[in-house]
């Protein structure tokens, strides 16, 4: 399968099975879009006849080049089905936790999928003992995996900093005993960042995700304080300080959300950039139909324009010698993940689970509170292997919409939670999410191609 598209004057062909990417001139592009495998050594007459006599030589040359790439396995290459055991791992190890140390929050964001922090249950904080039990659980379940990830999440995790510190200290002790390596990340709204906490997070967390939406007006329309005021001026200086003091070798992202109310979100990305942030992620809201700010199918053409504008703006900024990174336009064409990872996807419900303040286990943070998806509890060590197998069994080959999609090895089947919220089942793709993903991937491939071509 080959996906051809044109953006910013560059015509690209992505060979889906190999991952090879080619930039084509207009003749080769037109020709490539007409071809279906298997290719013959000479250009079929019926295709050549669709060009003018003046183009005949160029068509012959372009076809020879396309055929040469086909022979090398870099165009119209065949997909090789992998053994089922690789794609559907039985009893997959658990190696990543979303640790909900707080089901409470000191903001009242209107779009919060955690229903302003409590996930529709009671406001609560995880105690240190439960956090340690969660660490024990993941060590025990991680099998041969060496790298274990803990993301401190909420609600707002800084409201439970004692638990965060206790969990980190305990994990550091245990990793030596069990031959593991823990990596910690945290997702915070920044309200409680003080000098001591900034030092701690910059020392212990390999990635800090800071939630801020962009322009003050956009942020404050959604991200409200408990008293109902805007949060922008409360958190911005604290986030700026954290990033200024952070080791440049360590990751951080300022992560915003766009909704149907700010489809001009390039302005929000640029607002974050001008505020001094270089690692930026601004993502579509997860919101129920009818809320008034959800992304609708009718918004997609406008959003496509906006992503294209963002890609072009990034090129212009980089041409001026400045730089920022947009998370969803990252694509590592040379050293990205292996095909097995790409087939399996995010690992929710099997290698990645969420743990609530009470120790309850769910397939991921977006399933928390869904009673049918309760998987067990770290305090008594219960864990539903049946549920885990259901999630491990879902991949790009079992999701009907993914099988013939050109983007399957990049999004890896999308988000089970988004599918569940849209259709009530994890294997039926959330169509709007798919379209957004494909837009972003085209932009990512375009930027990679632009970078590569400008260096020639």
């Amino acid at each position, binding site marked *: 399968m080959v996906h051809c598209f044109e953006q910013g004057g560059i015509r690209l062909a992505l060979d889906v*099975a*190999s*991952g*090879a*990417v*080619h*930039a*084509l001139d207009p*003749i*080769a592009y037109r020709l490539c879009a007409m071809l279906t495998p298997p290719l013959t050594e000479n250009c079929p007459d019926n295709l050549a006849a669709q060009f003018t006599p003046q183009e005949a030589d160029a068509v012959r040359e372009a076809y020879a*080049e*396309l055929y040469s*790439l086909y022979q090398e*396995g*870099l165009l119209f*290459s065949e*997909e*090789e089905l*992998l053994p089922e055991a*690789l794609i559907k791992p039985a009893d997959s*190890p658990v*190696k990543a936790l*979303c640790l909900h140390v707080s089901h409470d929050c000191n903001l009242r964001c209107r779009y919060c999928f955690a229903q302003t922090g409590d996930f529709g249950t009671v406001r609560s904080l995880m105690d240190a003992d439960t956090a340690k039990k969660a660490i024990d659980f993941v060590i025990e379940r991680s099998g041969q995996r*060496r*790298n274990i990830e803990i993301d401190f999440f909420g609600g707002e995790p800084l409201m439970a900093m004692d638990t965060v510190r206790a969990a980190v200290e305990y994990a550091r002790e245990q990793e030596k005993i069990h031959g593991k390596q823990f*990596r910690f990340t945290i997702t915070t709204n920044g309200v409680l960042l003080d000098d001591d906490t900034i030092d701690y997070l910059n020392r212990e967390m390999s990635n800090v*995700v800071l939630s801020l939406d962009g322009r003050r007006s956009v942020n404050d329309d959604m991200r409200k304080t408990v008293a109902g005021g805007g949060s922008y001026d409360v958190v911005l200086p604290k986030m700026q300080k954290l990033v200024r003091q952070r080791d440049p070798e360590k990751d951080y992202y300022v*992560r915003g959300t766009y909704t149907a109310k700010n489809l001009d979100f390039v302005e929000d990305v640029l607002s974050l950039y001008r505020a001094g942030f270089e690692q930026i*992620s601004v993502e*579509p809201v997860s919101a129920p139909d009818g809320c008034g700010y959800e992304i609708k199918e009718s918004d997609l053409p406008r959003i496509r324009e906006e992503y294209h504008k963002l890609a072009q703006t990034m090129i212009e900024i980089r041409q001026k010698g400045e730089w920022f990174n947009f*998370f*969803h336009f*990252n694509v*590592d*064409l*040379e*050293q*990205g*993940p*292996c*095909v*097995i*990872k790409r087939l399996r*996807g*995010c*690992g*929710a419900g099997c290698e*990645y689970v969420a743990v609530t303040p009470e120790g309850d286990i769910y397939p*991921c943070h977006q399933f928390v509170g869904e009673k049918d998806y309760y998987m067990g509890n770290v305090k008594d060590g219960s864990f539903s292997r049946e549920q885990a197998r259901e999630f491990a069994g879902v991949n790009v080959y079992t999701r009907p919409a993914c099988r013939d999609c050109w983007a399957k090895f990049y*999004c*890896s*089947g999308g*988000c089970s939670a*988004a599918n569940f919220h849209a259709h009530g089942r994890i294997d039926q793709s959330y169509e709007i*999410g798919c379209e957004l993903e494909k837009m972003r991937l085209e932009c990512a491939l375009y930027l*990679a*191609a632009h970078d*590569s*071509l400008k260096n*020639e």
Partner: protein
Amino acid sequence: MKHIKTINKSNLKKTAAHGGCGECQTSCQSACKTSCTVANQKCEKRR
């Protein structure tokens, strides 16, 4: 080549041979938490 410039010659199919170690970062832990992009993750063996 005159009409085509290859941007990258990666071959995903070859990664099946050494892949699947499971040591790489879980994609949703990286920044998103609400969307899924796996291809922007790093291979742990090539860090």
